[in-house]
């Protein structure tokens, strides 16, 4: 059994006066890919932000066995990387400079990037196939190209835990497949990936799945488990069906 990478006990969170999460208990194992799915407004993104320590919440959080609040911000930034959705646009920076921001936790204050930083950035940009436009500002890129640069920024951190909110936004099918390979390689190398996904079929390729509804976790289990498939069909009001095609589990519309 793998040790626990991210742990949450009795987590409740509100945005403004609006309660979003209600008493969530979650143990996400290390060196595995967990996908979080659920209908719109289920609280998936809020949960991910809380797990990353980016949103205040009641309850106990732990990262790699240590209480999250006890880890200094800089050290936490080295252990956990975050890729959000629709945050800043960084329009004015060149792709290379954007990816280099992922190396901030590694650099001493005011020190210029070291050779290791340049190497990590190049590797990350090549992984997401964004190396060719490294000198172009984000403002001149399409939505999918921009997303690949932002993904490279998160990869460049080289953290043990990577949390991603809607990482496939704007990616075309071939690059969704590339993303899948990237995540698989990270997990094979001992990394932990947690991703909120709307693309249920891609989410089913993960190791484990957390299914949320109305601010609660309704199911947490292996992706190839029958109980997970039943819970998935249930939470989407039986408007999707989970079927196996060529050995892969897929979510199809029920027509």
């Amino acid at each position, binding site marked *: 059994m793998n040790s626990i990478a991210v742990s949450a006990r009795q987590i409740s969170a509100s945005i403004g006066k609006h309660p979003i999460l209600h008493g969530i208990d979650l143990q996400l194992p290390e060196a595995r890919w967990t996908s979080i799915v659920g209908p719109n407004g289920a609280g998936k993104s809020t949960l991910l*932000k809380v797990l*990353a320590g*980016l949103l205040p919440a009641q309850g106990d959080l732990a990262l790699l066995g240590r209480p999250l609040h006890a880890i200094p*911000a*800089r*050290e*936490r*930034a*080295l252990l*956990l*990387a*975050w*890729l*959000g959705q629709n*945050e*800043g*646009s*960084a*329009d*004015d*920076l*060149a792709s290379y*400079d*954007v990816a280099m*921001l*992922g190396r*901030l*936790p590694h650099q001493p*204050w*005011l020190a210029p990037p070291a050779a290791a930083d340049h190497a990590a950035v190049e590797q990350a940009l090549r992984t997401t196939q964004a190396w060719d436009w490294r*000198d172009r*500002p984000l*403002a001149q890129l399409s939505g999918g190209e921009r997303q690949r640069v*932002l993904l490279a*920024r998160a990869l460049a*951190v080289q953290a043990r835990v990577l949390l991603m909110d809607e990482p496939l936004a704007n990616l075309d099918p071939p690059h969704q497949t590339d993303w899948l390979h990237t995540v698989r390689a990270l997990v094979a190398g001992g990394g932990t990936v947690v991703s909120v996904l709307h693309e249920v079929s891609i989410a089913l390729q993960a190791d484990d799945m957390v299914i949320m509804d109305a601010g609660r976790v309704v199911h947490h289990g292996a992706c190839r488990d029958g109980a997970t498939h039943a819970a998935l069909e249930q939470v989407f009001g039986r408007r999707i069906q989970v079927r196996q095609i060529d050995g892969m589990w897929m979510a199809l519309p029920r027509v």
Partner: protein
Amino acid sequence: MNPHRRALWCALWLLFASVALLLCGVGVGSTGFESVLRMWDEPVARQIVWDIRLPRTLGAWLAGALLGLAGAVAQGLFRNPLADPYLLGSASGAALGGAVAMALFGTSPLAAQWFTRLGVTGMAFIGAAGAVGLTLVLAKGVQHTLRLLLAGVIVGVVLGALRDLVELASPDILQSMQSFTLGTTSFVGWMACALMAAAWGVCSVLAWVLARALDGLTLGEATAASLGLPLAPMRVGLVAALALATGTAVAQTGLIAFVGLAAPHLVRSIVRVTHERHIVLSSLMGAVLLLAADILARWVLAPQELPVGVLTAALGGTYLLWLMHRRTSQSSAL
């Protein structure tokens, strides 16, 4: 071309333009270029060049550098391309601070004592910082562009009205306040230059040290926090740099609009780099812009002269309109 090399070229060009304009500024004035030629033998000519034209020209460059820096910091800090010291109300706050200081100390902008200059500058700094704070409270943060700009305009109008009240209560400062509100470099002496140079040094170091926070913020609040950046203290430092730059510039030259807005935009249209370089380039660009405008203001109606604030307001207002038009047509095209 690699953006970093392009930025270096841009900096070299701006420095070259600065030197050319400084030479030009020393030559332009009611007594013409002859004063420069005769300054070695005639004490009056030497005084005109050395004690009037040179500090004034240098002062215009420094005030522009401060405003350009303030504009770049404001736009990065508030993640808002339309933020500038003027639109955020900080310039009005600085002017109010200056008016209160003049009313209290009974001084005019011509006053040459160190401590009164420092007093006016200090009050302008407090006014600028207070105004930014007020704008942020009214706008409930920086997220909403329109609310931020509206709050800035409201703060500017209210603080402007307060300044009028201060002027009415102490009519003896009316004369000096008028040139102050129009924005002019004609009262800038060596002392004002020294003050602005010192403030520019402090603000540049502060902004340079905190530039990484501005880079991180371009990715959004959550991502910047996830990178381990201590955002709260960095924000305080950046607002302090913004207020010090605006306050010092306004205390010496009065209200000069749009330099802080236009300089970072012009830089971005030439080269897009991280804030470490962007702030330096914007500062140089602001300096070149204001010095060029100042020379133009002295030359257009010579031997009369135009307050440079009037000129930058007219030119800068047009530029802002064009910028907004371009942004609207761009966003409707998407």
